[in-house]
């Protein structure tokens, strides 16, 4: 019995020491003790980022992480925010809401004061509950689901899903060469992103009396063979295929449509951005693809050129819109913090209040909309114009 008792105690002590060991210098209790800048000697803004850097959605998270790094380096080199430098830390959430909360807690232990994240929708909604509880300012670069910014402390840089769907319908209806075409839709019924865009597109298309002849779906688990959906669209004589999905699946659809000799006009949204970067993808198939995206890496204004060059130097590829969103998010934080005289010694909650107030007052000229500016509403949504891009000669070119 004594031996057993001892083994119990040993086991328990082992587990708890493992757990406690990682605790390290945990700043205590949410709001008041957050000004934990004593370690570095000089006060600094602690900005945290969360997104998937492993798993299926890793490319989005990595781009956001790298784009923020670039923005942080630029801002620090230019003297920081209100004279204070930024410290920045990025945590992986594997595109999983549960892990995102763990990541959020890790960043809180580190002393995070402002959150840029999370990158994907479902984790973003879960984390927004936590930031709401702690009254921490949250700016998501790319959380598109409506509920990502349901609380007043959360803002986003990207368009919301319904916004993209209705904007796509508007664009098609307003384009002389597209508006009379019969439309087919293939969407991913297992992601919020795709269903959100799909539903608002269908609703708006109804209002604008666009002719939808085929509406089929797939799920993430069956995202490899689209012959049935394509055949349905082809049989319905659809001339325009609306694809509110990510580019990985879209590239397969383009290949398979080509294989069956079906060549409608393809129309995608921001998830289509990046299709030219798919490995082993014959980019000639993407010629003439329309996509409604908030960002065009080929825009020739100074801001975009600078960002794209730095990003390319660092990572070896052209940034997608996620990276651009994140880059602008950092500059939005800088603009607001300077306008509101936010300093790192303020509590998380005070910073949040000031940022909330300032967010609706700024006009930001970022890489997304340059030379036009973005403004924000108190509901957390950005006001900006979508850009329609068409792929020509394997490059994204602004369509009229």
């Amino acid at each position, binding site marked *: 019995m004594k031996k057993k008792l001892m083994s119990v105690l040993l086991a328990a002590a082992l587990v708890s020491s493992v757990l*406690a060991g990682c*605790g390290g210098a*945990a700043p205590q209790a949410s709001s008041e003790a957050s000004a934990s800048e004593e370690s570095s000697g000089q006060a600094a803004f602690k900005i945290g980022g969360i997104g998937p850097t492993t798993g299926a959605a890793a490319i989005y998270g990595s781009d956001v992480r790298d784009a923020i790094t670039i923005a942080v380096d630029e801002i620090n080199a230019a003297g920081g925010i209100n004279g204070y430098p930024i410290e920045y830390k990025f945590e992986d959430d594997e595109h999983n809401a*549960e892990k995102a909360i*763990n990541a959020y*807690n890790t960043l809180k232990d580190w002393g995070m004061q402002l959150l840029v994240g999370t990158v994907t929708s479902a984790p973003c909604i879960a984390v927004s509950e936590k930031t709401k509880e702690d009254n921490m300012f949250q700016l998501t670069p790319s959380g598109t689901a409506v509920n990502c910014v349901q609380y007043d402390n959360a803002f986003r840089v990207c368009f919301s899903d319904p916004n993209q769907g209705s904007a796509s319908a508007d664009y098609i209806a307003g384009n002389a060469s597209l508006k009379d075409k019969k439309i087919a839709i293939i969407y*991913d019924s297992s992601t919020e992103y795709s*269903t959100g865009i799909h539903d608002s597109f269908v609703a708006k298309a109804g209002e604008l009396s666009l002719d939808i002849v085929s509406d089929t779906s797939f799920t993430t688990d069956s995202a490899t063979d689209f012959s049935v959906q394509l055949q349905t669209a082809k049989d319905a004589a659809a001339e325009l295929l609306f694809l509110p999905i990510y580019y990985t699946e879209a590239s397969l659809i383009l290949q398979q449509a080509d294989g069956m000799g079906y060549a409608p006009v393809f129309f995608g949204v921001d998830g289509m951005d990046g299709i030219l970067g798919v490995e082993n993808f014959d980019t000639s198939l993407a010629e003439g693809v329309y996509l409604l995206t908030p960002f065009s890496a080929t825009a020739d204004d100074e801001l975009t050129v600078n960002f794209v060059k730095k990003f390319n130097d660092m990572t070896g590829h052209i940034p997608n819109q996620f990276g651009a969103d994140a880059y602008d998010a950092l500059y939005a934080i800088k603009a607001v913090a300077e306008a509101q005289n936010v300093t790192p010694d303020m509590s998380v909650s005070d910073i949040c209040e000031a940022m909330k107030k300032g967010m609706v007052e700024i006009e930001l000229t970022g890489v997304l909309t340059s030379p036009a500016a973005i403004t924000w509403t108190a509901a957390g949504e950005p006001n900006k114009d979508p850009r329609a891009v068409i792929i020509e000669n394997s490059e994204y070119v602004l369509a009229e």
Partner: protein
Amino acid sequence: MMKMTKQTRRDLITYGIVIVFYIVMQLLDLAGILSFHVKGLLVPLCYYAIAAVALNLVVGILGDLSLGHAGFMCIGAFSSSLFSVTLKDSGFPAGLRFFLALLIGTFFAALFGFLIGIPVLRLNGDYLAIVTLAFGEIIKNILAAVYFGYDEEGLHIAFKSFPLQGEGKMLINGAMGIQGTPTDSTFTIAVVILLLALFIVQNIVRSRTGRAIMSIRDNRIAAEAVGIQITKYKMTAFTISAAIAGTAGVLFSHNTTTLTATSTYFGYNVSILILVYVVLGGIGNIRGSVIATAILYILPEMLRGLSNYRMLIYAIVLIIIMLINWAPAAITFREKYGISAYLARRKENRTPVSDMGSGKGGS
């Protein structure tokens, strides 16, 4: 000292580990040493441990391989969340609401476990594994596609999105799942449920039913020959296991506010993850399941500092643990030089004529 069988003592030690762990965590929390990160891990730790205990009942005690337990978690999560979201703003007391949510989640998971068990348990071995895997996927895919809401015209359920007429609310919104589940799960409740799950499973194992179930595992033909109703006992084990997994699902859904039926949370990968906990903890060893879950769930979180390498290291650690636990050479080494062997030797030296301490077991 009270007279105890060796088995009872083993059971009590299992409860003891959980309780000591709970007390230590609470003390650390009071002392302010516990980081937010660790605090956030405690509830997930408990529900995965509960799921592992549930799965161990099927895999270890009944001896059948189920790869669909994430599906039962999914049912528990959705049914209870639906209930909680509906009652959230009605002024219903939160404690009672969560208690009822636990019962509802458990009940529905048990119901589906029973219904699925009827056709599935006629199969054995690999066939059973594949069919349970399929059922888990079916549950997940249906819940990811269903729209369920109410408006002025009553309740609606469909596989396509539909507009609500006037006042109303979409409860399950297709791929967007259920939003706004109240976060009722606390570490205390989770630990109580874990203890309850341990109590139920360990007592089943010691009971007449448990012996019947294990006899099916050990020799189905012999069990049938002595008149044990195979189907009945298989059903019992499978349904109880599903029910407990459902309870884990309730804790899951009430821990985060968003609930979506995607592969990340309820796919077969999750079922296999739980199976990994069971296998590494020792098939049929209930206490091992709990400890393995604790270590394996915490590990990738503790390795956050290594950023992208952590998944690689996690995989390597899995292999190493598996080898240490199960490789014959490692077992011999443990028996020769392990802690229990050392203690036994010491005991032997002191009182040469006493009984030999058992060399095996002891995790």
